């Protein structure tokens, strides 16, 4: 198996695995970063979203080969001690229910705000189109994104 160089949360790893392996499983099973969740493996639930060079990316649809050489940020590396504005607003709005899909949602929210500091409701609808929260936290997700953008809506 070839070795791939992968930068995750600022740390360089040399990963020896099948290059077709989804990044999701490298993170979870090889690197022990279980904050990134497995929900569908089909690219339609958003639980596995991470940042790849600052872009929200479904890690179940990204192979090790594609991720190698790029900068990956997971929920564990989004901030030191949960201080990212999105994490703050998530707590302030008490968004989570079971919490399982939330790391993916938070990573999507953080990437959205990076590119659109003041998203409209429509922007939020579009950004979260591929996310599933079976507990139904959606109203609070929307509020938390607006709050993180600086306006409580």
């Amino acid at each position, binding site marked *: 198996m070839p070795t791939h160089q992968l930068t995750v949360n600022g740390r360089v790893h040399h990963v020896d695995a099948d290059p077709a392996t989804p990044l999701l499983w490298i993170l979870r099973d090889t690197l022990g970063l279980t*904050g990134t969740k497995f*929900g569908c493996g089909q690219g339609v639930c958003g639980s596995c979203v991470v940042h790849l060079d600052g872009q929200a990316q479904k890690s179940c649809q990204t192979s090790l080969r594609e991720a190698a050489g790029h900068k990956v940020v997971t929920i564990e590396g989004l901030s030191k001690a949960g201080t990212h504005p999105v994490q703050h607003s998530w707590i302030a709005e008490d968004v989570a229910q079971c919490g399982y899909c939330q790391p993916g949602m938070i990573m999507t929210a953080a990437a959205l705000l990076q590119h659109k500091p003041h998203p409209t409701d429509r922007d939020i609808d579009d950004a979260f189109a591929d996310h599933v929260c079976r507990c139904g936290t959606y109203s609070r997700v929307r509020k938390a994104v607006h709050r993180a953008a600086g306006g409580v809506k």
Partner: protein
Amino acid sequence: MTDRRDFLKVTGALGAGLVLGLRLDAKALPGKVAKTEFRPNAFLALGPDGRVRITVPKVEMGQGVRTALPMVLAEEMDLDWSRIDVVNATPGPDFKSMGTGGSTSVSTTWTTLRQAGAAAREMLKAAAAAQWGLAVGQCHTEKGFVLGPGGRKLGYGDLADAAAKQPLPSKPPLKKPGDFRLLGKRTPRFDGTDIVTGKAVFGLDVRRPGQRFAAVLRCPVPGGKPKAWDKSKAEAVHGVKAVVEVPTGLAVIAESTWAAFKGREALAATTTWDEGAAKDFSSASLETKMRAALTGPADEARKVGDAEKVLATAARLLEAEYSFPYQAHATVEPMNATAHIGQAGAELWVGSQSANRAQDRAAAALGLKPEQVQLNVPLIGGGFGRRLGTDFSTEAAQVAKAAGGGPIQVVWDREDDFRHDLFHPATLHRMRVGLDATGGISAWVHRIAGPAILRSWMGGQKSPTQAASEANGALDLPYGIPAITVDFGEVEAPTPLGWWRGIQIVPNVFARECFLDEVAHATGMDPLQLRLKLLGDQGVVKFGGEEADIRRLKKVLQVAAAKAGWGRKLPPGRGLGLACHAYDGRTYAAQVAEVSVEKGQLRIHKITCTVDCGFVVNPLGLEAQVEGGIAFGLSALFSQITWEKGRTVQTGYHDFPVLRLADMPSVETHIVSSGADPSGMGEPPVPLAIPAVLNALFAATGIRVRSLPLLPQMLQKA
């Protein structure tokens, strides 16, 4: 009434080891507990540093028990909320009743947790009083301290040792609601920070030293078995360690989840199946049987008067058929469990809503005694009733056994999760109403036809309460009608069934509340006025084994209508619809939906929900349950599981649509206070969303939808 409820009730009564008095002081505890820890009961341990560890006797799956239940105990004990730790119980002598479901977690633990906290508080006061040479009555408690006259103050931690030596009060005084500092306050989720930083540990996140991963190749037809296979192809996949036979299929053991999945894929290509008795099952064949059962013999669930006789002579007869499809739970965390079998016993990590049952069944599968199986319950990434089943935990124990002990994590992928769910079954509903000469309802007949969930739960046996269970939501029709018949025509289906958030109440209340709306329109009455008239001045009404206070239902309905502006003028194409229900006679709820159809699409603008669930422990959590319950209900407007050749047609979120963020309506929640003790809020909001929305759709467009899922063509006007 239902055996699910009985299960939760019996197991909900807390285990004998928790009765105050059996654990009097630290000396009686095993040596591993620090002797300076004060443990007056199994729920709490006070350390010398003053921190209190609270053990939660129910499992957390998003409904907020790791916040609400500690609040109850912390209130009575007067704890500093910032100085508590919360741990999950494990099944055993102290926790014999961890079954979590049926919206019972707060109601079944409320008194016990209050007493547990109050007893500890009284013992701490007594310890401080002894130290000060004062009477207990001169001391009081506040946020982790005992206070006495003259500025005397001792921290709980400093009193831990002395408190453990105090006699346990037999009837510790409970606080008056007016003195509550924590209960009733909007309290954010205890695990919030862990969740937003990715630290929260769910079942799939369990990692043990030397852990392997497994994927099980199961027959896509429930009950089918592998006939022939060639494991060499799977074993050739990098990272695959072994292929072993288990009762549910063939398990591929690997170094990583991905290798297990790839190995299984290779194995599947070589495997032939004996698909078993269910191989020809289809939704179409079931529907034929269900339609026959709409008029054939049935088991009675409720009978008031002789409704058939009244119908035969009614001035006018109204009739309609409603249909609700199979549903999947579709929890975002797929089923999984981790098992490790050692010399003396086994240890499992399972996101189980039935931890005691999971322990018993894993033990049975391993030939062990339950006490030899340590069962840990991590956080649960969505339960909705699916994890009341023990299929996935028993399977993990079997996989670990077949593979030499483990630790092994068995991971289901999304397709496994859909194909091998414990499904909510389809039902057909034949609704008939007789009207007298003045247009009043003289008879109500509701026939339900479908497979019985309870039979599946009872291992194939028919319970005496089966009809009542399947008619939940129909038999407890709250309306005062002189003649009522509700019955259940059972249809066999070879599919595993289980409890699904809202259970049979969802289809039954959908049929009931939509049909009543039809009756209102057919008789020229306003749907609100008709309901209020039928609820009338009834007080407590008995339905079989339970009762409901109709006055409380009437109140929530009136408040919902007022808050939603029922009767106000709406723009053309917009409509309001309502529904109400007394859930298990314990939680009273009403919803008003406001909808429109735009470009052929249903738009749900807003749902106003009123609830009376007795005392509200955490209003912030209650609102989350209402929002989430409505989202769950609305998903079922559009989703369905269908069967072809014995297997589900749907295999994921791509063909089983669940509500997405863009479609979430605005939800407004109003709490109606009744002064009653707390009941529950997990399920009650779910069954009202569908009928409220469909009744609003009719008001907006004149389109009456009686068959789900709601398909785009149903919104095209004829």
